[in-house]
Structures are given as C-alpha cells and as structure tokens.
C-alpha cells in the first residue's frame, strides 16, 4: 500500500506492506532510528512519537493508519542546531543515563508541556506514566521537565 506522511517537515511517500508498524517504517524505511523499540507490547513508551499533535506509541500503530499524517520524532525537535528546551533540560538535569528511554520520554514530555506549560511534580509523573526508565529512578527526569517548563 502506498502511504504518504510528513515526517519532521519532509514529505515521504512509500510502498509498505499493510502490516508494517509505524515504528518499523520510521526506523527501517526512513532511517529515523532515534525512535526506540523497548517492550514492543505498548507498555514502555520508548517508541513514543507525535502524530498530528498527539503523543502515541508507534509500536501500536500501523503505518497505513498514518496516511496523510504530520509526524514529529525526536530527530525533529531541535532546530538550527539548537536543542529543544526539553532536550536541554534532560542534559542540564541529568535526566538520562543509558538514554534508551530518552527519545520517548522527551516526546511524552513535549505533549505534557503543550497541554500544560507549568506542570506540578505530580502532573509530570502522571503524564509520564506510560514511559518506563530502568536507570534514572525518574527524579532527574521530573527535574528535566521542570527545567524545560521554566526555560521555554
């Protein structure tokens, strides 16, 4: 099936098998490997990207469901070599160790700040319920999102 989607501002038209998952399409066909696959069972949030303004788990969507969609992945956040404030926050506050969960964490945080520019501690934790981190213990992730909220 033919699918056309705009990813990080560029339009891509590809022929995909209908069973292709969106994350596979991004990673294997479009070479955007910043989006990670952790659990592959809709639980961990490592594959989180933004589709039409909403954070979603790209391991749980078919590429064909996103025909015509506007997609942002972690690769699309920085502009003109300047990190996005959320990326800057994760660096500044040590919001990552191994970094595996980070792209998904950042995209989910993007969604939070879009809807709630000044979240409380509890609101940040609630908004990141669908994202697992096996390294940081979450505290520095919360601080990173707070930093981003204060500096964007």
């Amino acid at each position, binding site marked *: 099936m033919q699918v056309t989607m705009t990813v990080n501002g560029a339009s891509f038209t590809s022929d995909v098998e209908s069973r292709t998952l969106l994350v596979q399409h991004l990673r294997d066909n479009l070479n955007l490997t910043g989006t990670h696959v952790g659990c592959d069972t809709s639980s961990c949030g490592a594959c989180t990207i933004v589709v039409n303004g909403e954070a*979603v788990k790209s391991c*749980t969507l078919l590429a064909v*469901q996103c025909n015509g969609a506007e997609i942002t992945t972690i690769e699309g956040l920085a502009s003109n070599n300047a990190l996005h404030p959320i990326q800057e926050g994760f660096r500044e506050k040590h919001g990552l160790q191994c970094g595996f969960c980070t792209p998904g964490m950042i995209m989910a945080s993007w969604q939070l700040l879009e809807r709630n520019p000044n979240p409380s501690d509890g609101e940040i934790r609630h908004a990141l319920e*669908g994202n697992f981190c096996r390294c940081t213990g979450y505290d520095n992730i919360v601080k990173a999102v707070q930093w981003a909220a204060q500096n964007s």
Partner: protein
Amino acid sequence: MIPAAFEYYRASSVDEALALMQQHGEDAKVLAGGHSLVPAMKLRLATPEKLIDIGGISGLQGIQDRGDHIAIGALTTHWQLESSDLVQQKASALSQAAGAIGDVQVRNRGTIGGALAHADPAADYPGAILALNATLVIRGSGGERTVAASGFFTGLWETAVQDGELLTEIRIPTDAANANSCYLKFPQPASRYPYVGCAVAMTTSGGTCSDVRVGFSGVGESAFRDSGVENAMRGQAVSEASAKFAGDQATNGRSVLSDWSVSEEYRRAMAKVFAKRALLQVGR
C-alpha cells in the same frame, strides 16, 4: 512482533464501512484506534484476513450537547472525553473513567466505541456506561437501532453489536444523577487495567439519597449494575455507616473474576470498599 498479513481497506463513511463489512463478511475486522486490536494482532491472538479502517470517518467523531443528552461519536478518544468540559460537568463518571485508562499515549489514540465494542472484562468504561444509563446507537445494513446500556454487555467479550454492525454513537442522558457521578478505580499497577472500577450516579435531596445507579467494571465476566447496593442506598441519609452498609452489598449473589494477581475474595472485598467510597464521594 509483526501482525500476520492482511488486506487493508480504508472507509471514509459509515455507509462505505458497512458495505465493506458486508462484502468481506467474517474475514474482516473493523479497526478504530487499534489499541486493543493491533496488540492482539502483533501477538497473533487475532489474525483477521482483512481490516476495515474506520478511523478516518469524520461523522463518527466528536461530542455534542443535544439538550436532553450528550451524543458521543464512537471514534471520540479517551483524551477527548477526559478533557471535555461538557462531559466533566454533565457525566463526570465518564470523563473520570476515560482519564483513568492506560496512559496518555493510549488515551490519545483509543476510542470509546472501540473500548465498548471490544468489551474486555477489565475495561473501564462499561461500569460507567451502566451507571450513567447510556443508550448505544448501532448501525447495520438494515438501518439503525438503539440499545440501552443494561442490554449491551451480553457476556465475556460479547456485546449487542452483531457481525456486520457498527457502534456509532453513545448517548448519555443529561440528568441530575449523571451530573453528580464519579468513577473510582483500583488499577493493576503494571497493566493499569482495573481490578475494580466502580461508577456511581446519585441524586440527593437534603442529604438523603433519592436515587442511585451503581455500575462495576473489571469485577465480573462483564460489567453489571449492582441493584443490591442501589436498593440499600436509596432512601437513606448518606453517611459513613449507610454507605458502608450499602457498599457491603456489592457483588452479593454474583460470581466474581479471579486471576493470577487477585483472588476472587480480594476482588469482592475491594468492590465493597470502592462502592462505599464512590457512594460517599457523590453523596456528600
């Protein structure tokens, strides 16, 4: 994990979807948000030969105030329900159930129609739909029919939606009880599906419960109204003691699910506790 191969069809209207469903019959499954179906297909628990994607049908989207009821299109997402002022005010139990589902990403994609049609015994909405006394609109090639929530959940994974039919709309009456309703959930910590979900809609007058509807999710093979709790609460002054007595009637005379993480006994006990808490929350 990749689903087994299937043919994909995209419907742009309900009529087109119904025609495709008729053409492909039992080989086809409808795809809405895909947040129950795609995981099942990845695990090859579901291997439909054909998928009919209804996700782009604009006529099935949105929340409307129709005076005596709120009309909710089947494709309305959990997030849209959670964040709707109208639903928060007129059917709080529904917005609370929506906001308690999974996580942000799941709520952005999953739809109320998909969740109700799927009828997972552990789904959140069904208990709320029962307590809110909703009406469900179903369309097939023969036309449209409506089913009361009380007749919708017919068994484990089973609903009144027949092969070849689509759930198109959910109607929530805008009555005083629904404006004074809540949904309380005791989630499994890992999956976040409810061990117990309890929805209560109540009218009170001078501190006395004049009428009440109580619905449970996650407790039995399918969601149910609990008339034992309702009868014990109706006509009583709402207090810690009366709510406890009424809550204690929960699940009496019913079979209750047990699974690897929660025994039948524990789930029953928690149903009583959550019924009491929900009664007190809307009764005060």
